[in-house]
């Protein structure tokens, strides 16, 4: 089945220790998104890639970076995690231009100690 996969499902890191979350897709979609969702809040878009073009949201902290080495994979790097970065991180994909349905992975829950 075509899908969006996120690894790991749960990640524990220490305050200030860099961490990388990964996302892969078999849908061959052009666009990949990263969202942060804190408890009882709306998923918040951090950034997205349209093919190799990176689009950062204006209010995404510099602490968050992303890489997309190829169509299938996208990584979220948190350079120096703080306690406030503990959240669910959701990866999604869509085909491309115009209003599109986004397809989500299961998410990675990040805990910062």
């Amino acid at each position, binding site marked *: 089945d075509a899908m969006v996969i996120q690894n790991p499902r749960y990640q524990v890191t220490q305050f200030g220790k860099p961490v990388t979350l990964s996302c892969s897709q078999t849908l061959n979609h052009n666009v990949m998104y990263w969202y942060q969702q804190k408890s009882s809040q709306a998923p918040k878009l951090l950034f997205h890639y349209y093919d190799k073009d990176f689009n950062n949201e204006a209010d995404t902290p510099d602490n968050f970076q992303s890489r997309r080495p190829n169509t299938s994979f996208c990584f979220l790097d948190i350079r120096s995690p703080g306690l406030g970065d503990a959240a669910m991180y959701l990866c999604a994909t869509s085909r491309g231009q115009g209003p*599109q*349905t986004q397809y989500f992975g*299961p998410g990675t829950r990040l805990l910062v100690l």
Partner: protein
Amino acid sequence: DQQVKQNSPSLSVQEGRISILNCDYTNSMFDYFLWYKKYPAEGPTFLISISSIKDKNEDGRFTVFLNKSAKHLSLHIVPSQPGDSAVYFCAASPHSSNTGKLIFGQGTTLQVKP
């Protein structure tokens, strides 16, 4: 500034009855709306969508209504089933977005009682 709002954090409905989940938005540039369903420990799953050129879209037990003048949309589930118990998010996409950017509401937790 929350552009998409789901004012009811939770809703409880008896099995077999209708569930109505509501969503309000403030940005008149939104022209595509979606509903997602989320179970615990899973990512959101797409349910149904509607374009701003329509006022209703139906898919099986799920119907989405759009009232553009009121900037309001609703999701009707008829009949409700216990398996529908989940968090429901509405989302909107602005016309100006060429990469399908979505703005989400905070979600409504639906509980369907047997």
